[in-house]
C-alpha cells in the first residue's frame, strides 16, 4: 500500500522565562498525495465497511424513521467502491446479520450491492437497544484484517438493554480495531453515550434530528470513509527522561483528549492512536512539563512523529517528524508572548467545555449556572470566529451582549437545538489567520 505523504508542522513560542516548566505547542499533521495537492489515491487501498442499523421497536415510531434509515443505508452501499468488503448488521437486543446472511464480509460489486439493498428493504423494527452487542458483531466481522476498517452506527435510542459496564467492556476491546462514526436519529438518544462510543472508536458523532437528512449524511460519511488511504496512524511522542506529558489533545477538527490513550511504544515514547487518514489536516495541542533549565539553553521538549505499523515483524514506519522546543530566556517580551494558535485552540477547548457544562446545568435545572456557562461559550465562540457554534448557541440563548457574554436562556429550548449544540460542541475551526506564527527570535 502506498501511503499518503505526511508532514508535521509545529507552531509554538519556545521561549520560557527563568524557571519556566510548561511547554505548549500546536502540532499540525497533514496528509497529502505525494504528487502534490491532488487528493490521496485510494483505489487500491484494502477497505472493510460495516453498516449497523438500529431496528429496535422505536425505529417504527414514526415508521418514516426506519424507512429513512433503510434508504440511507442503501445509499451508503451505492457509495462503496468496487471491491470494498462490506456487511450490513441490524441491532436490537442483539445483533443480526442483514447481509450477507452468514457472518462475514463480501466484496462490493453490482450483484452484492443489489442483494444487500434488497435485504435492507425487508427490515422491520422490534425489540430493544444493546449497542455493545452490535459493536461486538462488527468487531467479529472485521476480524484481524488490515487496511481501512470502518463502521457506521445509527441509533435512535438509549442503550437500555445492556449495562454501561457491558458497553464499556466492548469499547475497550474494540478501541483501535476499527473506526466507528455514530449517528443519532431523532431526539430520544443520549448524546454523552454516543459521544463515548465515537470517541473510543476514533469516529465522529452527529445528530440527524430529521430522518429526512439521513440519506445525505450517510452518503457523506461513506464518501469520507472511502477517502481514507491509511489505517492505524499513530502520533508518537518522545519526551526527555525528566519531562512529563501533561496532555495531548486533538483540537481540530474536533476536541478530543488523547492523553489517556497512550501506549508506551519505545524508550521515553508513547503512541496515541489517530485512526485512519485520507487527504486531511488535524491539529494537536501538546503540553509538556520540563525541568527548568539555564537561560540560553535549548531543549527538545518533545519529538513528535507520525507512525504507521510496519510490515509483519517490522518496526513501525515513521512518516514525518517535528520538534517541540523549549528555550529559557531572560527576555520577558519573548517569554510572555502567548502563541496565537495555542491561544486560539485553548479558547475552543474551553468553549466546548462551557457549552457542555451549560447544557448539563440546564438539564439539571440549575439555570443560573446554565446561563453563565452558555454566556461564556458565546464570548469564546465569538473570539474564535466559530460561527457555527455562535449560530447554535443563539438557538438556546438570547444574546444581550456578545462581548461580556450576557445572555438569557430561551423560554422554549427545543430538544433538537439542545442536542445539536451538545453533539457538535467539540467541533472547532482553524485560526482565521493561522499563518501568523510566533517563532520570532529575540532582539539583539
Amino acid at each position, binding site marked *: 500500500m502506498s501511503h499518503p505523504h505526511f*508532514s508535521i508542522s509545529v*507552531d509554538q513560542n519556545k521561549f520560557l522565562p527563568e524557571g519556566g516548566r510548561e511547554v505548549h505547542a500546536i502540532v499540525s499533521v497533514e496528509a497529502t498525495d505525494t504528487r502534490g495537492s491532488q487528493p490521496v489515491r485510494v483505489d487500491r487501498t484494502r477497505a472493510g465497511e460495516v453498516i449497523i442499523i438500529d431496528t429496535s421497536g422505536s425505529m417504527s415510531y414514526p415508521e418514516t424513521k426506519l424507512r429513512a434509515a433503510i434508504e440511507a443505508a442503501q445509499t451508503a452501499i451505492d457509495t462503496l467502491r468496487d471491491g470494498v468488503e462490506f456487511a450490513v448488521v441490524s441491532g436490537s437486543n442483539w445483533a443480526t446479520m442483514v447481509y450477507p446472511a452468514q457472518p462475514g464480509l463480501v466484496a462490493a460489486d453490482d450483484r452484492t450491492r443489489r442483494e444487500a439493498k434488497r435485504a435492507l428493504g425487508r427490515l422491520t423494527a422490534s425489540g430493544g437497544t444493546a449497542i455493545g452487542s452490535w459493536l461486538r458483531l462488527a468487531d467479529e466481522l472485521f476480524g484481524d484484517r488490515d487496511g481501512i476498517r470502518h463502521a457506521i452506527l445509527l441509533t435512535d435510542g438509549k442503550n437500555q438493554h445492556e449495562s454501561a459496564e457491558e458497553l464499556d467492556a466492548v469499547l475497550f476491546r474494540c478501541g483501535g480495531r476499527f473506526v466507528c462514526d455514530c449517528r443519532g436519529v431523532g431526539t430520544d438518544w443520549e448524546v454523552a453515550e454516543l459521544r463515548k462510543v465515537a470517541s473510543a472508536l476514533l469516529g465522529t458523532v452527529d445528530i440527524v434530528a430529521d430522518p429526512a437528512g439521513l440519506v445525505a449524511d450517510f452518503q457523506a460519511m461513506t464518501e469520507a470513509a472511502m477517502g481514507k488511504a491509511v489505517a492505524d496512524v499513530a502520533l508518537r511522542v518522545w519526551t526527555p527522561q525528566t519531562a512529563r506529558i501533561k496532555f495531548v489533545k486533538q483540537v481540530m477538527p474536533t476536541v478530543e483528549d488523547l492523553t489517556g490513550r497512550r501506549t508506551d511504544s519505545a524508550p521515553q515514547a508513547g503512541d496515541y492512536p489517530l485512526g485512519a487518514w485520507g487527504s486531511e489536516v488535524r491539529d494537536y495541542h501538546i503540553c509538556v512539563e520540563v525541568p527548568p533549565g539555564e537561560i540560553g539553553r535549548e531543549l527538545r521538549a518533545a519529538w513528535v512523529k507520525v507512525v504507521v505499523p510496519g510490515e509483519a515483524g517490522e518496526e513501525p514506519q515513521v512518516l*514525518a517528524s517535528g*520538534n517541540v522546543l523549549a528555550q529559557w530566556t531572560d527576555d520577558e517580551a519573548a517569554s510572555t508572548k502567548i502563541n496565537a494558535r495555542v491561544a486560539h485552540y485553548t479558547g475552543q477547548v474551553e468553549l466546548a467545555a462551557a457549552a457542555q457544562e451549560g447544557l448539563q446545568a440546564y438539564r439539571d435545572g440549575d439555570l443560573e449556572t446554565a446561563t453563565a456557562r452558555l454566556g461564556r461559550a458565546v464570548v469564546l465562540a465569538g473570539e474564535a470566529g466559530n460561527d457555527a457554534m455562535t449560530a447554535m448557541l443563539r438557538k438556546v440563548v438570547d444574546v444581550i451582549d456578545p462581548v461580556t457574554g450576557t445572555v438569557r436562556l430561551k423560554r422554549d429550548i427545543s430538544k433538537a437545538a439542545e442536542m445539536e449544540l451538545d453533539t457538535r460542541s467539540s467541533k472547532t475551526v482553524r485560526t482565521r489567520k493561522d499563518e501568523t506564527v510566533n517563532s520570532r527570535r529575540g532582539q*539583539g
Partner: protein
Amino acid sequence: MTDEPTGTDPAATKTAELSCAGCGEIVFPSEDFCENCGRRLREGAAAPAGGPGPARREGATTKQYRGGADPARACAHCASRTIDAEGYCGACGMRQPAERDHVEITVPAGAAGVSDRGRRYARNEDALALTGHATGVAAVVSDGVGSSQRPEEASRAAADTGAAELAARLDAGTDPQEATRLAALKAAAAVAALAGSPGEAPSCTYVSAVVHGGAVTVGWIGDSRVYWIAAQEPPEDAADAGVEADTADLAELTGSAQLTEDDSWAAFMVAEGALTEAEAEAHPNAHVITAWLGADAGEVHPHVRTYRPSGPGTLLVCSDGLWNYFPAPAALAALVDGSADALGTARTLVRHALDAGGRDNITVAVIPLPTPSTEQPR
C-alpha cells in the same frame, strides 16, 4: 544578532520534497543531517572543525572548544551517549553545545579572534575568519540577522568567502581598497545564493579589516564595527584626538576611534540630527540595520576606508554583541592592555561582554599593529 526591518517570522515547518543523496531517504529542508544514514545534507551548517573551509589557509590554526559532531560523545548535561543527528540528547533532550558555541582562532601573524554564543541565544550566529596575506593580516566578522532564516549559514558564508577573496586578491597584488570592496561583494553574492526561495533570505552583516604595511583598510555593510585602540592616547589638549580627516582616501589616526559607521536606523537618526546618540540607543529600533547581505538586500554598496595610525595600537573587528556593552572607543581601550597576546585580549573582551550579560553572540578579532609578521617571514 540583529533585526532586519523587513524580517518575516519563519514557521517551524517541515515539508518533504527532497531526498538524501546518500541513501534516497526523504529529507526535509530544515534538517542538517539525513535521519536515515546521517549524511550531512547542507553545506555550511556547523562545518566540522579543521575542515577545508574556503578561508582556512596554510598556517592558520583553529582551536575549537567543546564537542564536535561526534556521535559517541557524552551529553554535556546528563552524560548519556545518545546524541542524535540534530544535536539533541536522546535521554534528557538538551541541545548539545555546538562547535560554534565558542571558537578561538589564531594566525601566526600574531592576530587572534574569539566568537562566543553568549548567554542568551541557543546558537552562535556570528562568524569569524582570520587569514594571513602577502603583506599582513585580514579579519572578517559577520553577524547573522536573527529575523531571517538560517542566519548562521549566512554569516559563515560571508566570513569564509570574504576572507578567502581578500587573501586571494591581496596575494595577487590588488590594491587593498579594491580588494576589500571585491571581497565584500563576493561575500554578498555567496550569501544571496543561500536563499532557497524568495520567501527565505538568510542574511547577515559584514565587516573586514586588512592590515597592510602600516595602514588599515576597513570595509563594511551593516552594524558590525572596527575600532582602533591606540597604545598611547594623544595628550588631552590635542584638539582633535582620534581620526583626523586627511585626504579623501586616507585618514590619520592619532587616538582610539571607531573606524566604521553603522548602517543602522540609530546611526541614520543621529546623522540626521533627529535624535541624540543616547536617545537613538534607547529606542526599540536601535538595532534595526538599514543594509545587509542577503537575497533581499538589493544592490550592495560596501563602505571602504583606509586609515594610517600614527603609532602602535590594536585593531578590534567585532559584532554588536561586544560593542553593545562598550560602544565608546575609550571603554574598549580600558579593557585592552596593549600586550602582544592577541588571543588573551580577545578572550578578555569576550569575558567582559559575557559578564555584562552576554545578551547576544559575541565576536571579536584582535590584530596588534604593527603585526609581528611584518617583521618576520610567515
